[in-house]
């Protein structure tokens, strides 16, 4: 793509998110969302084939519907309270509709159907932006309305999401779809935390973004989109096998890696509020997530996956792709756990 166009589009994406996060007028929030969505469509369409077109179309339709629902919620709030300020508590009906709109934007179950298909149809780099940056804006809105969210609704969404994220990912070999279901599950954890302690939801979001960025960047380095090609990492870039092992296990929430930190904090918050069954269920479904990450690590780092012998004799050439900040990201995504006492600063 023309570099000028690319820069303008990227800046529009960033601007849209920032407008959403910083505005105090509901209309500006909606405008920010629309800007974000319209600007990201070209990024999703980097390659001009029908698959990408279809993914873009689906993304556009769902996000547009979500924005419409957001508008509906704003209007209901306006009718009931007569003002546009985001600082004031929301009317209950408006809160329900807005929560559903944000759930659609995030890809929470039962609005999750578009996430794997859109993720599969686009480039790895676009998928990176889709799964990480696009989550910031809706999460900030959820954070702002968190005092008035209907707890039944949000917990239902969260339970369904972790279940769908766990079971859906079991049946996949395409890495982009696996990351999509992983995002659904993590969004479920975040919304569960949002109910009791929004700060922990933000913590989860930050660590999730770091982990997903690291993982997708490692995939981008080898241009792997399937488990089979991921399993040839030992031949292409042997150093990466260890890194993939550590990062994927951290994504699954295995102590003592950093992915364990948000899960631990969320479970603590839930149990502090006398909620026992919900965290038990969430942890059990997180096991399903861990299982398919382990399957990936098993085929990548721990064993020599079966393949034709021709594939095993690659030429070791100098890498041409540039990977930004991959080493610090890897460190961040595996070794953060000892810093957990610093969370006391959040109190």
């Amino acid at each position, binding site marked *: 793509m023309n570099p000028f166009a690319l820069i303008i589009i990227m800046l529009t994406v960033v601007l849209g998110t920032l407008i959403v996060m910083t505005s105090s007028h509901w209309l500006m929030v909606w405008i920010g969302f629309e800007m974000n969505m319209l600007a990201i469509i070209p990024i999703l369409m980097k390659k001009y084939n029908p698959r990408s077109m279809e993914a873009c179309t689906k993304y556009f*339709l769902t996000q547009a*519907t979500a924005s419409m629902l957001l508008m509906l919620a704003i209007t209901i709030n306006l009718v009931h309270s007569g003002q546009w300020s985001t600082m004031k508590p929301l009317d209950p*009906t408006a809160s*329900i509709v807005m929560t559903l709109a944000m759930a659609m934007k995030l890809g929470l179950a039962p*609005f999750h*159907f578009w996430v794997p*298909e859109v993720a599969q149809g686009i480039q790895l780099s676009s998928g990176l932006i889709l799964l990480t940056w696009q989550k910031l804006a809706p999460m900030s809105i959820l954070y702002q309305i968190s005092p008035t969210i209907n707890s039944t*609704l949000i917990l239902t969404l969260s339970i369904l999401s972790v279940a769908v994220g766990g*079971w859906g*990912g079991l049946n996949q070999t395409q890495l982009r779809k696996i990351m999509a279901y992983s995002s659904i599950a993590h969004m479920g954890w975040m919304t569960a935390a949002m109910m009791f302690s929004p700060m922990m939801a933000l913590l989860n979001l930050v660590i999730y973004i770091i982990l997903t960025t690291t993982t997708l960047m490692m995939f981008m380095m080898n241009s792997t989109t399937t488990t089979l090609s991921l399993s040839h990492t030992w031949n292409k870039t042997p150093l990466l096998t260890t890194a993939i092992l550590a990062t994927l296990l951290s994504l699954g929430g295995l102590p003592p890696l950093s992915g364990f930190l948000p899960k631990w904090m969320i479970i603590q918050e839930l149990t502090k509020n006398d909620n026992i069954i919900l965290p038990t269920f969430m942890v059990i479904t997180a096991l399903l997530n861990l299982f398919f990450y382990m399957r990936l690590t098993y085929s990548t780092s721990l064993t020599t996956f079966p393949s034709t012998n021709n594939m095993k004799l690659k030429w070791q050439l100098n890498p041409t792709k540039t990977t930004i900040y991959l080493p610090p990201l890897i460190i961040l995504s595996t070794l953060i756990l000892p810093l957990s006492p610093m969370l006391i600063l959040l109190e």
Partner: protein
Amino acid sequence: MNLFTSSMLLTLLILIVPVMASNFNIYTKNSYPNYVKTMVSYAFMTSLIPTIIFIQSGQDMVISNWHWMTIQTMKLTLSFKLDYFSMIFMPVALFVTWSIMEFSLWYMHSDPNINRFFKYLLMFLITMMILVTANNLFQLFIGWEGVGIMSFMLIGWWFGRADANTAALQAILYNRIGDVGLLMAMAWFLFNLNTWELQQIFLLNPTNTNLPLAGLLLAATGKSAQFGLHPWLPSAMEGPTPVSALLHSSTMVVAGIFLLIRFYPLTENNKTIQTTMLCLGAVTTLFTAICALTQNDIKKIVAFSTSSQLGLMMVTVGINQPHLAFLHICTHAFFKAMLFMCSGSIIHSLSDEQDIRKMGGLYKTLPFTTTALIAGSLALTGTPFLTGFYSKDLIIESINTSYTNAWALMLTLIATSLTAVYSTRIIYFALMGQPRFPTFILINENNPLLINPIKRLLVGSIFAGFLISNNITPMTIPQMTMPTHLKMTAIAVTLLGFIVALELNLATQNLKFKSPSNSTKFSTLLGYFPTTMHRLQPFLNLLASQKVASMVLDLTWLENILPKSISTFQMNTSMMISTQKGQIKLYFLSFLITLALTLLALKFV
């Protein structure tokens, strides 16, 4: 007083001496069997002294010798109860044993292990005495188990024969099932009455005695071969004839009935148990009499006859007449032992032929045995004024005049007539007609070792009823008046049985044997009882346990419930969730439905 206890203990001591002598190799001469026989006869004579003293003075005695142990509040001692039952039974048992031992000197004279045989017989006698004179249940249990073990060793005397071994095992197994009942009764008495002494049990007179009496009834069913635990008695005929004569007709099999008789103070208060005993005894007596009708082995016919008489004794205890049952035990010992000895004489004379279809015409060649056999059969059927009459006729009269189950009475009367039928069968096939055995055998019954015991028991079969019943102290009031037709019932049915059997035998003598009818099959196959219980029951048990172990436990619980079910569930769920059609229309439909439902649920419910 002193003579009573000392002669009693002397009797028991006389019996123990030969066992000790053989254990410590004291007796070095050659004639150990003769020595044993002589000691038993001395013991018999010595035991007459306390019996006569008891009859004359009418006082019971309990000898408590040795304090064995005290468990918290229960004291176990070695104590002998010398009362009506044990005092009269002991001389009878010793007399019969003496005769049988003399008989087995002739019968087993060619056996190289005859010394051991006599030692086993003597050990059996000692344990039987322990059982009979026991004053507490523990000592009784010692005697009980002892007679069981000796029965096992004696039935399997010819252990080279596979049938003998299985018969011995069968005896042990069936007895063991009965032992469970005895143990349950002992446990109940221990828990509820804190004792095993008979005096204390009768003194306390508990009211809810269903459970222990049921246990004792089970024990009697096992030991005395009542219906349900009866197959071991005919199978026990695999042992030598003296063993059959001693154990399985006179002494061991009556131990079960003896136990029930001992507990008569408890049974006379419990109507339920009495009814159970009555029905069980009636079924037993009729069933075994039917089975005896078509047997071809002379010993088996006498064995079933024993079983039938045991059923009759159980019926008597069931109508609350324990003393009559005891009288029948004593009189029955005489003629049944003699019947077995006559069978032994016939078998040995025909060089070990036991099938009555291959005997015949023996009344000319074995006149003395013929006399004894016919006299014994007449005594068995209750011919007036022979031994059996004094007990059997009284029993039938009591049943007829008591307020009891008419069906049980009917069964007993039918069984009484069948007694005459199968006795006629033995006499007809074995003694009358033309000989059906090969002619090369020399038949000689002139041996005094054979003649004398049979002579003694013959005299006993004829006179013992009269002597015993006139000399014992009356413990109950016999029924004096009854209508004539009730009094003549026993004789009438017996005569009917005799006549029908004789007529049938004479009429069908030269007819061709057709294929058996259903009733014949029922009788020949012993009521299908061994077929089902010995084969079907264990098969079903083993099949069920195999199914449980392999199918239920292994395949289902360990494999399917957790591992397979979890894995199939996960697979199915993940396939269900991750297969999407890809049509955005459907997705939006689901969104719409979710929206509508959520708004409805959260706003208006």
